[in-house]
């Protein structure tokens, strides 16, 4: 199956067309265009203030774009008020109605569309079952736990079977363990209901766990929109590379070779080699981006085209993995990760040890900006 975003004939469910939103002199969203397809789980990822929530609120109808248009199923929804849109939103604060029971919270939207009583009851029961809240139907929001409240908010926003569900930092208030469980639940529910989800988050792990595609935003613009693995392995800029996970960036000047570039990066050091399809001019400034887990540590000088020597400056022990910070003679600090597949007492390297680092030609990504 071809992913819809790679299929030129696929019709997008949502289409942002040159959307700009400014608050006074502050440009929250800057001439942004984006297509999101049916049944996608799309994550908008970025630091706070990058415009991702504004984008979501424009889809819900709480903000109107300053210019440009937003199409939902080929229809311009810009002039449509939020109560007339077939879009529902799950709020970061959950926004549960404190004066209504869990049942009435979920039934709220259905009652507004005058759904017949019997149908309404079965729909609410269906939602309660989906979110495993049957036992709490008669409780008030303040009588249930944070995780249960989060599920009520989800059930309420799904009850009207919207074409599109918007989730604003839906797991921000949950602790880490619960958050991880909930992420999988959310994916399950999305697959069961077949609804298109757009989630806003600043947590890259969350975005990568749940999403079919991730859009990384910075200062009102989309920097890169790709599937999670593509965005992690092939970031298009140093911004994306350093926003998602850990990265080593080595700056230097490129010399084009047959299959990629050679990088001159420090005085008196051998060139680093990198395979790339991107064409660089001779002497062009660029960065090599290498993920720490793709770097190997050796006690002896290895047989490799890319190798550097340094001393262990710091070790971050995280249980399953360890990150070694290695200071090179040139002053660069490179992070290298190893899986702790042996007991820590048998660890081969310790502070101030002299070590060699190496990586393959395909491990690094060459970035022009």
């Amino acid at each position, binding site marked *: 199956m071809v992913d819809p975003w790679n299929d030129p004939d696929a019709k997008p469910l949502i289409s942002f067309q040159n959307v700009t939103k400014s608050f006074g002199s502050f440009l929250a969203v800057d001439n942004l265009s984006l297509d999101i397809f049916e049944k996608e789980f799309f994550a908008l990822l970025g630091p706070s203030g990058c415009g991702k929530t504004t984008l979501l609120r424009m889809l*819900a*109808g*709480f903000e109107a774009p300053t210019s440009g248009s937003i199409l939902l199923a080929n229809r311009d929804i810009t002039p449509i*008020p*939020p*109560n007339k849109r077939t*879009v*529902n*939103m799950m*709020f*970061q*604060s959950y*926004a*549960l*109605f*404190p*004066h209504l029971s869990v049942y009435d919270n979920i039934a*709220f*939207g259905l009652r*507004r*569309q005058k759904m017949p009583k019997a149908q309404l009851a079965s729909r609410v029961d269906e939602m309660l079952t989906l979110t495993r809240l049957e036992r709490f139907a008669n409780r008030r929001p*303040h009588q249930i736990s944070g995780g249960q409240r989060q599920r009520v908010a989800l059930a*309420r*926003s799904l009850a*009207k079977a919207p074409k599109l569900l918007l989730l604003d930092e839906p797991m921000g208030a949950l602790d880490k363990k619960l958050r991880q469980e909930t992420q999988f639940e959310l994916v399950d529910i999305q697959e069961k209901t077949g609804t298109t989800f757009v989630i806003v988050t600043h947590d890259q792990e969350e975005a990568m766990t749940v999403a079919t595609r991730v859009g990384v935003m910075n200062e009102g613009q989309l920097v890169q929109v790709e599937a999670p693995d593509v965005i992690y392995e092939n970031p298009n800029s140093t911004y994306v590379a350093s926003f998602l996970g850990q990265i080593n960036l080595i700056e230097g000047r490129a010399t084009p070779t047959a299959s990629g570039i050679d990088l001159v990066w420090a005085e008196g050091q051998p060139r680093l080699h990198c395979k790339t399809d991107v064409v660089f001019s001779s002497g062009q400034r660029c960065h090599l981006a290498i993920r720490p887990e793709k770097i190997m540590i050796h006690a002896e000088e290895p047989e490799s085209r890319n190798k550097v020597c340094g001393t262990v400056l710091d070790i971050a022990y995280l249980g399953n993995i360890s990150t070694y910070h290695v200071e090179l003679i040139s002053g660069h600090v490179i992070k290298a990760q190893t899986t702790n597949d042996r007991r820590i007492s048998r660890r081969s390297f310790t502070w101030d040890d002299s070590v060699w680092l190496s990586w393959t030609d395909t491990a690094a990504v060459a970035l022009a900006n």
Partner: protein
Amino acid sequence: MRRLTWFNTTALTFGFAFLYLPVVILVVYSFNSSRLVTVWAGFSTKWYFELLQNQLFIDAAWVTLRVAAISSTIATILGTMAAYVLVRSARFYGRTLFSGMIYAPLVMPEVITGLSLLLLFIGIGLDRGLVTIILAHTTFSMCFVSVVVSSRLANFDRSLEEAALDLGCTPFHAFCLVTLPNIAPAVIAGWLLAFSLSLDDLVIASFTAGPSATTLPIRIWSSVRLGVSPEINALSTLLIAMVSIGVITAALISKRNLLRQN
């Protein structure tokens, strides 16, 4: 629970005596059979019966209740609307000025409020009577309501209203179904405040009342100038009873709400 020390007991006794002794004396003497207010001559409820015969007082009481009920209701509606706009609306030009102006009557001397209203009513040729008192009381109690309601609105999560809109409510329905139930305690408190302010206002009412309508505080004030009669004591006792019942009921309702919430 800690026991009261002798110092605490004394302080408590003096404090409450200071607050309530005059009231207690007034209540006790309302059951005095003597016409002289300061001489005790035995228990009697005759002044209460005589009060019921006094058409002037009954008329005044009726005017006062009508004024309080109508003016506090209008003030609650207007005050809630003003609070809603000032707390909720997007920034508009002069918003700070407006929110400052709505609180100004709180510190305005009543004499000035009364006088300015009097001048206005004369200016537009409105005969002084029930209508003018209601207008005047609405004017000055509205800002109290708006203060009470806006402090509640400021603590009220705005995304609740957005959620209501998102789930298909018109802005009006969102207000009625979500905002109002959640700010209801403040709205009711505002109404009670406006009602009691109107009930015991003397200064503004005396500027805006006319020969056709006199409120109870004006009637009491003018009759006391001719000497305190035991009837006044009886009337005051009834007022105190009414206010106490109101306050206790309000306290019980809020306590029950609190218990239910926990």
